[in-house]
């Protein structure tokens, strides 16, 4: 597990805003959802912002990232039914360097397939935090934008961007595979332009996201940030 440098805590003689922010960054996570013997297994260090490289190096890295997008194989909603045609020979997404990975550790694109019920949102948050950055989120369908059909349902959230940062929305119910490919191409453009800093955004507004998540997910029995 990462060591948190304690300097930020000791040199607190003259508190400026900056140092207070540093202290907030250095504060450890509570992980109060976990039982005592489980706390040892999980990291309690707050996630740290990772700055991108400078100049040509970052643009080259972004090109590589945009050319190999690995989807997390998690059909969170009915939008996942259009991923099957996307993978098969009619709309062959492998042509664009897109492939599906079964484990969140190795994947970098998370497709929120439509509506997310509260029970699924818990798994979405956990899978999203297990993914290694930079990671990108595709909101699929109208339900991720504003609740869509189920805007007044008691069990589906209305806006996914209140809980995890979203890079690209693909509207429609259901969005066609062509629309999905269009969304992927848009995502590639944004990655090349270096606009997809969703992970750093998540880390900057970490407390806000956590507050929103814990407001809905009542039985929070998982670590606060899952490395």
């Amino acid at each position, binding site marked *: 597990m990462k060591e948190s440098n304690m300097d930020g805590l000791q040199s607190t003689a003259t508190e400026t805003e900056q140092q207070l922010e540093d202290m907030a960054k250095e504060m450890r996570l509570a992980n109060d959802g976990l039982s005592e013997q489980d706390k040892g297994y999980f990291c309690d260090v707050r996630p740290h912002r990772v700055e991108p490289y400078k100049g040509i190096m970052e643009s080259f890295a972004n090109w590589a990232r945009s050319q190999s997008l690995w989807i997390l194989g998690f059909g969170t909603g009915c939008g996942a039914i259009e991923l099957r045609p996307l993978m098969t020979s009619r709309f062959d997404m492998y042509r664009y360097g897109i492939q599906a990975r079964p484990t969140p550790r190795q994947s970098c694109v998370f497709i929120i397939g439509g509506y997310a019920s*509260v*029970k699924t949102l*818990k798994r979405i948050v956990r899978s999203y935090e297990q993914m290694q950055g930079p990671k990108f989120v595709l909101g699929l369908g109208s339900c991720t*934008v*504003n*609740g869509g059909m189920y*805007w*007044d*349902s*008691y*069990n*589906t*959230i*209305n*806006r996914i961007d*209140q809980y995890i940062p979203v890079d690209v929305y693909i509207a429609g119910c259901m969005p066609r595979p062509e629309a999905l490919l269009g969304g992927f191409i848009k995502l590639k453009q944004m990655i090349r332009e270096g606009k997809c800093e969703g992970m750093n955004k998540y880390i900057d507004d970490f407390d806000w996201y956590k507050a*929103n998540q814990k*407001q*809905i*997910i*009542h*039985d929070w029995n998982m670590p606060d940030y899952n490395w």
Partner: protein
Amino acid sequence: MATERQERTMQEVNDSGLVGDRPAGLKFVHVEADQAVAYITRLRDVQGYTHLVFFTAIDYIEDSLFRLTYMVHNYDSRQDMGVQVDIPRQGASMESIHHLWPHAATYQRELKEMFGIDFPGSPGVDDSFILEGWTGISPMRREFDTRQYSEQTYFPRPGRVTHDTAAYMKENLYPSEAETW
């Protein structure tokens, strides 16, 4: 195990006391709560209604009662029989039929969670089935307002306008046809 009281109920079923007999092959019968399970047992064992199609409840909040509906099917006579039981809404509780069909326990789990109807003795009836960490009244009860709950909880995106469909269509879409019905 059928007392003659159920015999008589059976006779009534076959003769009359049917509600909504459309389509052919679908019958509904009302049974008292205390003899419902024995009656269903007889339906399964004697009358050949061997298939439990579904088991659900209807919330009549104005009469303050739940109407349980056991739908059983007879594959020989191709009959669907809806056995309907009225139970009071306060402290709603009902005998379990998981000993007749194992998958009835699943329905009872759902009813416990969604309506708050208790089935003592049903395996795992208290486990959460669909919802997770749900606090508050059971969502399928009619006094639960899902729209209000959703607007309070799930950060509705500003800008959504909800028209009253009838008024909107009457004004904008079909000004002439709206009154033709």
